[in-house]
């Protein structure tokens, strides 16, 4: 019943600060139990590094159950690694073979600059939300929750869009570094619901303006984002956001 142990060769991006140029460093890690998660493997590596008085690899993580959106890195060129619909924290080592080489690097995008090692600055995504990604319902002003009925179908679609965890994998996977899947998901969720209607067109304009202000590229429909999204958010959300945007430009 002993779970299998494998040896892995890591090439990990080390960069001490935003100014540092950074480079790959190679590490061999033995005794990796295949029941471990990817982040636990990094923990193990870090324990070893500290024992050798080498600074541990910095990486972002928190919930380790695929919901907070804090973790993420490129593994062999794929955002969150090779397993579909899976965050890095939920990727287990049984999906790798003994002696595999894993190239691990941070999200690469001018809009999400590297802070240290695998840690990047995703505050641009917060700024996009604060530009309009909400419904302005002041505390205390809400009517009874059942006062407005919502089609189950629409509520389900809104829920699909709302599953976005804001990890940034879509930006990292996009050849243009566009955050449109992230933005489209939020716009979709809110515009599908009657409560989100009044602000709908203004919201689209404000959020897209903010996207332009950040260092992000434009969406050219490569759909890499959908393939990389750990929550399988559909690109149809981008189309829905675009329709809202066209509506806005028609109405002026």
């Amino acid at each position, binding site marked *: 019943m002993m779970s299998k142990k494998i040896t892995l060769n890591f090439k990990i991006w080390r960069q001490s600060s935003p100014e540092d140029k950074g480079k790959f460093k190679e590490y061999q890690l033995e005794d990796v139990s295949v*029941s471990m998660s990817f982040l636990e493997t990094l923990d193990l590596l870090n*324990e070893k590094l500290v024992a050798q008085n080498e600074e541990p690899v*910095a990486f972002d993580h928190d919930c380790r159950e695929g919901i907070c959106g804090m973790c993420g890195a490129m593994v062999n060129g794929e955002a969150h690694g090779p397993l579909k619909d899976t965050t890095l924290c939920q990727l287990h080592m049984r999906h790798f073979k003994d002696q595999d080489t894993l190239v691990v690097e941070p999200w690469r995008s001018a809009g999400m600059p590297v802070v240290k090692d695998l840690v990047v600055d995703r505050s641009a995504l917060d700024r996009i939300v604060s530009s309009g990604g909400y419904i302005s319902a002041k505390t205390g002003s809400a009517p009874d*929750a*059942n006062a407005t009925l919502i089609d189950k179908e629409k509520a389900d679609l809104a*829920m699909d869009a709302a599953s976005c965890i804001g990890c940034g994998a879509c930006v990292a996977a996009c050849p243009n570094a566009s955050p449109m899947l992230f933005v489209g998901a939020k716009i979709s969720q809110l515009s599908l619901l009657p409560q989100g209607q009044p602000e709908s067109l203004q919201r689209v304009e404000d959020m897209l303006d903010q996207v332009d202000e950040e260092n992000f590229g434009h969406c050219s429909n490569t759909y890499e984002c959908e393939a990389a999204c750990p929550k399988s958010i559909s690109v149809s959300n981008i189309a829905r956001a675009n329709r809202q945007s066209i509506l806005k430009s028609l109405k002026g």
Partner: protein
Amino acid sequence: MNLNSRIPSGPLEQKWSNHKMNLKLVSPSRRSNYTVLVVGTGLAGASAAASLSEMGYNVKSFCIQDSPRRAHSIAAQGGINAAKNYCNDGDSIFRLFYDTIKGGDYRAREANVYRLAELSNNIIDQCVAQGVPFAREYSGYLANRSFGGAQVSRTFYARGQTGQQLLLGAYGALMKEVGRGNIELFSRREMLDLIVDEAVKGITVRNLISGELETHMADAVVLATGGYSNVFFLSTNAMASNVTAAWRAYKKGACFANPCFVQIHPTCMPLEGDTQSKLTLMSESLRNDGRVWVPKRSGDTRNPSEIPEEERDYFLERIYPSFGNLVPRDVAARSMKKQCDEGRGVGEYKMSVYLDFGKAIDKFGKNVIFEKYGNLFDMYDRITGESPFQVPMRIYPAVHYTMGGLWVDYNLMSTIPGLFVLGEANFSDHGANRLGASALMQGLADGYFVAPATVSDYLASVDPIQKDKSSTLAEDSKQKVNQHISTLLKVKGNKTVDYFHKKLGQIMWNHCGIARTPKGLEEGLSLILELKERFWSEVNVLGSAKDLNQSLEKAGRVADFLEYGELMILDAMSRNESCGGHFREDFQTDKGDPLRNDKDFCHASVWEYKDKNQAPSRHQEELLFENVKLSQRSYE
């Protein structure tokens, strides 16, 4: 110590509305003169910050992660209770109040819990207005389900991601205020000191990216920094969840209540080795159809399929014939641990029991079972690599929630004037055990509705802080924090921070976990003291204080957990009864049921920090029950 709970007089149903009438107000034009700091951006923190800002106060919001949206509330799965009675099945505010009080094993304040039940309905309204996509019926009405053994369907949910959706709603409200320039957001900041000069004056935080220490002075501080489950190292909490903010407030004079009350969840992913970093919760609904068993013979290493029926012990069905696999959480958890302790655990590390769907699959067919539990089976498969359709699931209990927290009065104000504590970080609403689907409810009730009213009342009675007078306080605080950090960096031992955290976790789990004994607690206490000493001479924290240094962050948190563990044990030792999440083996019935002692322990234990060399003193807040009759549980 004057523990004035400030429970309003009058009938239970009118306490909150009468109280609100008596609370003082700050006129709209004067509100921007006041600064309120809100630490933490989970349900409680985000909703409080947004609401206070909408009222016109100057609000600064702090979180430890890179974005407020990551706070651990996001991981809550099940749902949120409200007494809407949309299902017309006999629910009411009083019934939700009653269930919560009883679920808490009569160790919470009636007035607080009633208010919580009362506000539950406003929460659902507020969340729907914000665009939270709750589950709906085909008719377009909101859907409800029954949760955690409740006899009514009062739980609202958004798939298995209710916490995520509620948090994103509150986060939206927060970011709206940030975008409008009303809230200043400080992410990647960790609170390391509370500045107090009779009343609260501010906080010192470390910028986790630059390493810089910053002080922020204010007229009131709201702590919404979550619970302390990670004192056990392994828990279902997120990795960064910690007790540091609450602990440092405690050392500045905020009393800590009921630290020994922790909730343990029986259906979690099993332990898979010493590199495991966290435990993942699976819905308890699994026990509706899964049967819990272990091999009768200890040390039986055969595959489960090779163990014939007569050599299996379905111990929950055997010991509790009428409830079987559906005994309450704590009873199931204790029973499971006992089997493993006696050597009948299964799996590579012998730290799990089977949860077998074989019989249910035979009876209802694979499709029906997949309909019901498909997503949970997938989640299990993803983590363990085993399909519950082929091999019985393995489960083990894990620490999930902490009921204890900083003591607060009815206004949610701590023993330090101007310091308010919300959500899991306070002790107020769940007594000795929390009812399912009520953590989210409490976080949002505190943040959206209670704090805005009570913080205003406090501010109305103080003059806005004079910025120039505060600089010495600020400098002082920074210097002390700096010292603490350099001491950690200077130890330069040969053990990692995690080494100590894991050791602490083992001590807490073995000595102050599911079942506690006076002797075990005694031993645990001396082990912790020993470990603490070793920590300060053997820990190795590399890197500097001047940039992003995750080992340093963790070291500070583990140092606090080491001290916190000690307080937990003291509390568990002094509570000579079994109640809720606190089970003392020396207080049980012949049948093994927990034995409460209402005569001597119908109170909250409230601990006051003295100083480094002196034991904390224990105070009591007596609990009065005027609206419910205290009863004992029994599960025969």
